[in-house]
């Protein structure tokens, strides 16, 4: 995903947050969770922006199951 897609998405999220301020009415705890989730997403999007081929979960799982690779081949 290229940079301009990511920036558009984040701008839209910011816009949505401004237009629909219902998130302000929740408790502190929920707001904390909300912002930490958004933070994780932000870090991830930075990572993806910098390196679109970021080593993903799939690669790690593949590495984990490498010994059993041959077992399921035809």
């Amino acid at each position, binding site marked *: 995903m290229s940079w301009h897609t990511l920036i558009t998405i984040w701008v839209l999220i910011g816009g949505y947050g401004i237009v629909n301020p219902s998130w302000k009415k929740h408790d502190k705890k*929920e707001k904390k969770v909300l912002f930490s989730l958004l933070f994780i997403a932000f870090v991830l999007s930075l990572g993806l922006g910098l390196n679109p081929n970021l080593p993903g979960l799939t690669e790690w799982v593949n590495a984990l199951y490498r010994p059993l690779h041959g077992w399921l081949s035809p």
Partner: protein
Amino acid sequence: MKKKISSFQMFLLMFQMILSSSVLLMPSITTMLSGKDMWMTPIFSMLVGYLTVWVAFKLYKLAPHGSFVKLLESSFGKVIGKGMNILFIIFQVHIIAIATRDYGEFIVTNFYLKTPVYIIIISMLILCAWVVSGGIEVLARTGQVFIPIITICTLFIFIFLIPELDPSTIFPMFEKGAAPVFKGSVVVAGWFCQIFLVIYILPYVKQENTIQKWGYICVTGIGLLMLIANITVFMLMSESASFYNYPVFTAARYIAYAEFFEHVEAIVMMVWVLGEFFKISFYYFTIYLSLSETLELQKPVVIILPIGLLLLLSTFWLAKDFQMIGDFISKSGTLYILTGFFIFPLVIYALTVIKQRLKA
């Protein structure tokens, strides 16, 4: 937890959740592994399905308030329990990101070549977020409207293909022995075990005593439909099914009647999109539910959109390109899914039962 849905609605949701991706993707992989006997694979993996339903129900019975999240916390202590919950959530995110990416690639490569994948995925995720924000009731009722239509349309596709089928392709059977069939069954079992996710909605089902019955009927129904799909695809294309990424879709291209009922792939796409909508919504819902319970939020509605955002980003974080995902599904992916949805629940069940025996 207020009881909001009926066991029939639960049956419909689970039925569609598993069937969506399997009917389209599975025949290719099983043909690769089992060759001529690929059509038999659902029969043997149904056993895994029954076992998973049984384990899910048993765990639901053992859990405090029927909540799987709380069960992990109470059996293994708060910290470890929460950690396990978070890991399980990440696992679910991974699995559904694969399915979502798969869906996006399918739509883009077959229909909308010039549309960027993320537009397709974002539009789907927005719809799923909307359904999830309505709660399990809305999801169940939407399911009641659409899922019978999806099933009937899918059956119609196979019925329309009957003139083109060649039954002799499935003979001789067991040519290469039982091992290839077994390998194919393991892959199919990777789909069946996803029914374990039903444990998250069991607390909402009104008629507790019919849950098991409907669960088994669900597994049987799925197995039956997979059987029909496999046989149809194989009789149509025999072993070249392994060359196509989406054999059922390719098969639908063969439908042509009376010179005007042709090129109906777009209808097949719509049926499949509806099905994927339910699968993705269901995973979205279970992720949302388990996250809000693990973090003990009172009004968790606000986290729906961030979860959606994370799902979107995970879809792209997964892998470089689509080939890698296809490779993953057929090799280590199956074992990964089985570990998470089959072995993990069994282990938890065993440990919990042992703990309870020790206490008593």
